[in-house]
């Protein structure tokens, strides 16, 4: 099927089989390998991206479903000049990553949450609830929560 994915503002005219999930097409056809695939069944959250501004599992969406819908991946977080996104700076400052495999998913989930409700930083319990969506097996969740709160405060 011929579709056009709009990823981080760039158009990618593609010819994809319907059976291919968004995560695979982002990685293999758009060469955007920042989106990671862990479990491929919606559990781990490493493949989280924004579709229409909302965090979704890109392993549980077909690429053909996303024709014409704006997609944002971790590659689009930093500015065009390479300046890291506040969330990326906060993850670094709080040492909220170790192996880094889960990090793109956490970043996009947090980016979606902050975009939809910037006041989430005032509610530690909501941030704690949010990070339960994704799996991290290195740092534990405390530094990740601190990083999201720090980014929400605009530090």
């Amino acid at each position, binding site marked *: 099927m011929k579709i056009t994915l709009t990823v981080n503002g760039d158009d990618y005219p593609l010819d994809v*089989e*319907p*059976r291919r999930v968004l995560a695979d097409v982002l990685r293999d056809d758009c060469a955007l390998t920042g989106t990671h695939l862990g479990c491929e*069944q919606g559990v781990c*959250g490493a493949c989280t991206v924004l579709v229409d501004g909302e965090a*979704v599992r890109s392993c549980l969406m077909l690429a*053909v*479903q996303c024709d014409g819908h704006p997609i944002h991946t971790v590659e689009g977080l930093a500015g065009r000049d390479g300046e890291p996104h506040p969330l990326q700076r906060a993850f670094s400052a709080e040492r909220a990553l170790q192996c880094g495999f889960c990090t793109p998913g956490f970043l996009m989930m947090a980016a979606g949450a902050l975009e939809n409700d910037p006041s989430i930083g005032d509610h530690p319990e909501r941030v704690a609830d949010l990070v*339960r*969506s994704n799996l991290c097996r290195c740092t534990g969740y405390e530094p990740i929560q601190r990083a999201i709160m720090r980014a929400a405060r605009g530090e």
Partner: protein
Amino acid sequence: MKPATFDYLAPRTLPEALAALGEGAQVLAGGQSLLLEMHLKRLDPALVVDVNHVPGLDHLDVADGRVEVGALVRHKVFESPEAVPGPLGGLFARAVVNIAHPPIRTRGTMVGSLAWAHPASEWCALAMALDAEIDLAAAHGTRTIAARDYFLGPFRTARRPDELITVIRFPLLSPDTGVGFLEHRRTGFSFAQVAVGAAITIREGVVTEARIGLANCADRPIRAEAAEQSLIGAEIACPGGPRVPADHPFTRAGRTAADQDAAPVPEPHADVEYRRHVIAVLVARTLREAAIR
């Protein structure tokens, strides 16, 4: 694993969608269970019919004391207790936070949960407890079926392959109804080992109406009718503290639900005896939660 090859159709009208359905076709709404099943090769459809572009399926309306939930209403909508009027909105809001996690709730739909019919599904248990009605549309006509006639077993329902669930209809709860929803799970990521939803009306200290839905307490969602009957007319002097006393009507109802209503199947981490114990405790606690508000 990756899904096997299939054809994909994204119809723009309901008749077009219904014409495409049949043996070998699957409906894609939220896709959060469908894609999972296709990854695991438990489902291998020849055709996937994406209904996301069909107008009129995303409505959430209240009419004649009932709420109608369309096929494209996402779980997330129910996180706000105001999404549905009265105590029913509160019950839905308590239940929905147990369903997966936010990114899944953004896409997944209530109707999809009923179509999948996982025995541990929260919505399916509530559909049983609340006597929900399900509208099934097909190219040759539409029928309405009661939830109690709809669930036939694990992942098995009365829906035929050429039918699309367009609407689930729930009766609203009267303003003096108290609601509770509690779930027991092995880990934060697990499906419910036992989940209980309850709606209870207490007038002048006496129970006048009780509805109890159980998830993962049998091979399909069930309504705990024996436990409900044991409550009607019971005097509730006090809803009980954090531990409901042994002789309290809620404790007896919990025991009745576990021994008479439930038919738990053994699982690797929960044999039948253990599950009956959890059901008894959780039903009593859920009733207490419903009674104190």
